[in-house]
């Protein structure tokens, strides 16, 4: 699969694999390349407090450390609706 062959706007499919359409019958599309706003991990000024990283409601974050010292954070996600901004 040559990923570059994927179109910019990609149709969204529903629970039965059907392409979702709007009220006019046109396919609903999303742009998977669209970037979410970047979180800024450093304070905006020297005296500003650092903002904690965003955590989505319902997500389960689990942190483990293995015998070799690798720290592994796993996020079991909840919201995966492609039409949710």
């Amino acid at each position, binding site marked *: *699969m040559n*990923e570059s062959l*994927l*179109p910019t706007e*990609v*149709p*969204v*499919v*529903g*629970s*039965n*694999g059907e*392409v979702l359409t709007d009220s006019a019958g046109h396919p609903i599309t*999303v742009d*998977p*390349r669209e*970037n*979410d706003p*970047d*979180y800024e*991990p*450093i304070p905006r000024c020297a005296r500003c407090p*650092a*903002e*904690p*990283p*965003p*955590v*989505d409601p319902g*997500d389960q*974050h689990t*942190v483990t450390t293995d015998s*070799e*010292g*690798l*720290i*592994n*954070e*796993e*996020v*079991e*996600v909840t*919201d*995966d*609706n*492609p039409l949710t901004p």
Partner: protein
Amino acid sequence: MVLTLITATSASAHYVYENDEVWSNTDSSKCLYTRSEVSHGVGGGYAQSRGLASDDWGVPPVCIWGWDRPAGNLATKWTYYKKTSSGWSVCRSIGWKYNTSKTNVLRASKTFAIYPPCGGGYYATKAWSKVYYSGAWHGAYSIWSGSHYIEP
């Protein structure tokens, strides 16, 4: 790059993944890998992305060992595709997930318990990860897992 299909005796043990380096600094002492995976899971399928600021299973140890990233300095996300008669379509998608504590591997995953979320057929995961270093985000190039058939 690695493209792997592992097949075991159980229908729950199939998975396809690919990984690649998406960023390194000039002397390659620090780097970021993205791994993209689609799997049978427990029957309904499974999508996962990993951002690896370290060596880990499935990633060649060519860069560094355990580059600990503070909270909010490592992120990953994925889009889960379903193949239709007209090509690949988006089935599920998540936004950036950030590490909440010191971490060198960040995974974001979802297991679809019984039925695939958009019907039976071929699925694939497109994954991204990014790392914050020296005042900027790096990486964020997509990695395509390869496709995997999941029964209805």
